[in-house]
């Protein structure tokens, strides 16, 4: 009974927040509703016994992808009214895609409902006794290892592409060599001068930079001294 109640709770929040994603006026609110709907979808996965998928959904989509998404949306200065204008134009296309997806889902799930025998024809029949983390591992890393690796390579290429696109040339951009910074010792830049006790400190008798800094031109100061008004 509790599981049923929980299902309706999560499913209800999921549907409402999914509707809010497309209808919210503020894009930041829309992204936050998207995150909420991801989260509720994860809860539904959990209720269906797919705990691994639920956690991965939260870690990958909510914890990483949506954070970057939220950032982009927060920092962009979006013209909301202009964004709304396209709504009428894209409505037919969006509705068609929605209907197609709905029909496919009905066919898939309806198939299980109407003809339970069709379960046997699935690509990867589920063995209930084995926990699903292990099952996914078995399928991904034994049956479909080549495809898995290939998708990894495609992602790598995409990543390299993104880096190449944003890489500026090395001449104009500033770089720091950390090993140089770490290896820099006080003795490289400073000289220690012995001071005789009681003899006062002559101007050149203290720890000072080896190369004297270029003095600021006096002419830059105004005639009122250093009292401010700059």
């Amino acid at each position, binding site marked *: *009974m*509790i599981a049923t109640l929980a299902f309706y709770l999560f499913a209800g929040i999921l549907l409402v927040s999914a509707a809010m994603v497309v209808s919210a006026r503020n894009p*930041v609110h829309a992204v*936050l509703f998207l*995150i909420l709907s991801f989260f509720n979808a994860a809860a539904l996965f959990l209720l269906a016994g797919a*705990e*691994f998928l639920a*956690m*991965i959904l*939260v*870690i990958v989509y*909510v*914890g*990483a992808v949506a*954070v*970057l998404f*939220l*950032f982009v949306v*927060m920092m962009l200065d979006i013209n909301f009214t202009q964004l709304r204008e396209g709504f009428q134009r894209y409505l037919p296309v969006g509705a068609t895609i929605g209907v197609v997806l709905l029909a496919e889902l009905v066919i898939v799930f309806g198939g299980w409902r109407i003809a339970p025998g069709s379960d046997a024809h699935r690509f990867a029949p589920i063995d209930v006794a084995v*926990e699903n*983390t*292990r099952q996914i591992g078995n399928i991904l890393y034994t049956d479909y290892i080549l495809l898995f690796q290939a998708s990894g390579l495609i992602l790598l290429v995409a990543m390299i592409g993104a880096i190449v696109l944003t890489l500026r040339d090395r001449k104009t951009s500033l770089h*720091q060599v*950390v090993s140089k910074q770490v290896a820099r010792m006080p003795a490289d830049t400073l000289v220690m001068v012995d001071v005789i006790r009681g003899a006062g400190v002559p101007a050149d008798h203290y720890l000072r930079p080896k190369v004297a800094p270029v003095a600021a031109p006096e002419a830059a100061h105004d005639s009122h001294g250093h009292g401010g008004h700059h």
Partner: protein
Amino acid sequence: MVDLALNFLFNTQLGFLILTVLKAFAILVPLLMMVAYLTYVERKVLGAIQLRKGPNVVGPFGLFQPFADAIKMLMKETVIPSGANKVLFLLAPMLTFSLAMLAWAVIPVNDGWAIADINVGVLYLFAISSLGVYGIIIAGWASNSRYPFLGAMRSAAQMVSYEVSMGFVMVTVLVCVGSLNLNDIVMAQSKLWFCIPLFPMAVIFFISTLAETNRSPFDLPEGESEIVAGFFLEYSSMSFGLFFLGEYANMILMSSMTTILFLGGWLGPFGLWPALGPIWFILKVCMVLFTFIWVRGTFPRYRYDQLMRLGWKVFLPFSLFYLVLVAGVLMAFGWLPHVA
């Protein structure tokens, strides 16, 4: 009568709900007490490091200081900036605090002493800790102010970066254990704690937890000398208090994660006094927490580019290398955990 009550608690659905709530209280009340006294200990330890006395006025040795602070925070006025997004502004601290509490559902304090002993415990912890960034981003954005937004940006970049190497560290531990269950992870260390064979990973994990909880020397999101107080600049009274409590609860959570993954959880050193499980656990957590404070008292704050460099150019390649090394060693010597 007692039998009847026990039967009700363990064998009916309503009883199960009540039992879970009771269990939650059993872990949250001590946790909040620990949070309260962690703030006290932090000020005392920092005081000792800086040759000061720390809080010593309220109660004996200043022991009632946390309660005085709590009352002060509750009595103050909650100021909401006029340009702020009210709902999100108030939601952010609640989110931070409740996420810090939520993760405790799976932490085993002793053999099987967890509210939910789930198969994917490690992933659950990782998922909840990766959600922690939202409280900060939402706070930064909803404040509608420059410094909080800068703090939120820093925090998001920092937490996402360090999560990556933290993930690899966890995978290395999981390769050694062969299970995602936190109970199994601790039991796998009954012979040898993972901090010995995986010492570099334990260090990386600890440093990553510092970055993940926005603690010094990685406390750039709140860097008071540059961006005033960062993401919680606009917060006052209890809405600030919730951020504060959330940060300390997260510190305790991360310390217990370190304890479970590397320090053998509730297992005593060399199998000493197994009956003292929870005591061992708390002692180890306190030790890690002390290191948190010690680090804060010792190291200057990182510069932002140094922080990013450490995360992406040092920790990520090294943890990836060590993961491959560990997997290779386990494979070569046939030490891979038995596959059921």
